[in-house]
């Protein structure tokens, strides 16, 4: 039983999309708080560069490529949904989920390598931030992928197609966070 009184869109934005913008806004301050804290420490401790040297820029770069491509498939899904093609939108969303799975798999491999070489979360404060920031991001990737599966399952039957755009916006946000995490954690050496 849905409320019927959604007759207006105060800022010209329909309700579902408005809610997603607010979700993104509150996530900006969560990640922002964590990353600002990291940046302040990083600038104050230039010798963290020695620790950061052991992050794997190729794996990080590959993961950036994976997420950028998954953003592409997400927006192509949106294009299909706008055209009313539910099954194609679902297929694009499944491709995005595949990207998410790849991302997590690469991350798991990467972290296993780092941990077995002795770079654990308690090795130094740099590594604490590294695992916490990337870990929080990875949790958002997983959550986004799970929600995307539900949206895709419904979209395949040509229902609730507007949700494709909504989960897409969230997904692009997750991509943008990684776009900043990549130089912060991998390149700043």
């Amino acid at each position, binding site marked *: *039983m*849905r*409320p*019927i*009184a*959604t*007759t*207006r*869109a*105060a*800022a010209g934005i*329909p*309700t579902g999309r*408005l*809610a997603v913008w*607010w*979700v993104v*806004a*509150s*996530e*900006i*301050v*969560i*990640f*922002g*708080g*964590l990353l*600002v*804290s990291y940046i*302040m*420490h990083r600038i104050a*401790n230039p010798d963290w560069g020695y620790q950061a040297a052991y992050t794997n820029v190729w794996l990080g770069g590959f993961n950036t490529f994976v997420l950028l491509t998954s953003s592409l498939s997400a927006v192509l899904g949106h294009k299909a949904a706008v055209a009313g093609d539910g099954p194609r939108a679902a297929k694009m969303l499944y491709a995005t989920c595949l990207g998410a799975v790849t991302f997590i798999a690469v991350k798991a491999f990467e972290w296993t390598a780092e941990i077995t070489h002795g770079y654990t*979360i*308690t090795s*130094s*404060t*740099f590594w*604490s*931030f590294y695992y*916490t920031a990337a870990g*929080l991001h990875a949790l958002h990737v997983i959550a986004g992928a799970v929600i995307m599966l539900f949206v895709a399952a419904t979209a395949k039957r040509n229902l609730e197609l507007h949700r494709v755009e909504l989960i897409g916006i969230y997904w692009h946000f997750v991509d943008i966070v990684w776009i900043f995490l990549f130089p912060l954690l991998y390149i700043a050496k």
Partner: protein
Amino acid sequence: MAESIPAHDAHAHPAHHPHAEPSFWSKYVFSTDHKMIAMQYMFTGMAMALIGGFMAYAFRMQLAFPGIDVPGYGTVTAGDYNALVTNHGTIMIFWVAMPVLIAAFGNFLIPLMIGCDDMVFPKINRLSYQIFLLSAVVLIVSFFVPGGGFGGAWTAYPPLSAKGQYNLTSLGSSLWLVAVALEFVAFLLGGINFVTTAMNSRAPGMKVFDIPLVVWMIVVASILFMASVGPLIAGAIMLFMDQNIGTAFFDPDKGGDPVLWQHLFWFFGHPEVYVVLLPAMGITAEIICVFARKKMFAYKTFLYTTFGTGVLSFTVWAHHQFVAGIDPRMANIFTVTTLLISIPIAEMCFIYIATLYGASIRLTTPMLWALAFVAEFLIGGVTGIFLGASGADIYFHDTYFVLAHFHYTFFPIAIIGTFAGFTFWFPKMFGKMMNETLGKIHFWGTIIPFNFTFIPLFFLGAYGDHRRIYNYQHFPELAGEQYQDLRILATVSLLVMLSFQLVFFYNCFISWRKKEKDAGKNPWRANTLEWTAESPPPHGNWPELPKVYRGPYEYSVPGREQDFYPQNVPS
């Protein structure tokens, strides 16, 4: 009393198809109806208030009569004392003020006052309450685990909060942190609901400046919350890891910085106090207009001032850290911004007073509470000026002066604001009127002792009483009889105030139990849309959703026969 004319809307259709009478579980426990969720928040919040109040009773007894076997609690050890004051503060802010003022009143009032049938995301609404309830359970569990509840103050500064070997409550501290984090998630979800509903679900004809002030205030408060809580969520994750995994985010020996936690905490902590203040001010605004039979003196100014306060509230946070070793140049900046922020709040109080000027004032119980809010909050606000000046704060920081200041602000917000709103909207929520005589007895029995509890604390703070000390007899310069007498006065007044709350509960009980629903739709003869629905409103709120023709405060309009002009009556 004018019967409200059902609005005729070409688009209206029955809010929902008729269905079988819901079971107890779907009606009361798993409801998605905003009014039921509001009640759930209200009663959980009030139950937590009893717990928080009991804690205050226990530690105040210890302070007045050190070493005493407190009736109903036992002896208060030093460790007990720390846990009691920590959890009293935490509970009152996060599990009483926020759920009651924002979640309960917000959930109940927003759809009713903007003329729609429910929140736009009813299931997320239910989920947010469930997460909130879980957070309350986790917090209460933390009191009973080995080591006991967290005792590192509601501000949880590391290294005390991060290291179990210092705080001696390692399990309790982690559970406390988890409870607070869950509560934040619940309110993030709720906030999104409130903002989108208020923006997109208004009745036809309700323009932005026709929205009642309390709705505006709750929405702005939700926005402030969502914009400020992020850094603290990040900080809580970091603190949790410091507590349990051995990271060193806040440990200077290993490259961390404890002052970072303070910044993360207070960046949220200061806007938080405005998050709880704004709904209380909104409730006061509604009540004053209704019982002064006069429109709000300067609705738009009030609103713009609120926005200004909201923005400014993000620029004052380090006034909590003046003596923590922050850069003195930053302390200068924060002093200026802190003193500046007193101006918009004072302006809002002046607007209340201007609204009252020349009005036909009816001193009903809700009106008494609303007026008390203005008077007591002004005392709180004025004493904040001393603390906002970094020079004076060097002396006052961590003394009872601070404590008295924030109780003179928080008590009006959380307690007076709640009683004001509750006594005002009780007839709508339950269909029955509360007893006015009992209401007034409760009012005076709360307000007078309240002042006698906290005014002595200003003096004690000025004399040098430090906070978070469980026995002043250990400090020769503070152990004198004249000081102890003030502490005893404060405690005895608290006991008197707590006993008068029984009058309130009795009033609630007998009013709720009345056989007949004697309130009718609009006992206060008010204008806003919630008074056009049945008392209590049914599922879906109205058979036909209302249409709005004017602002919410058209009282005593010249030329009209009646002194109120409801929003939904066609011109």
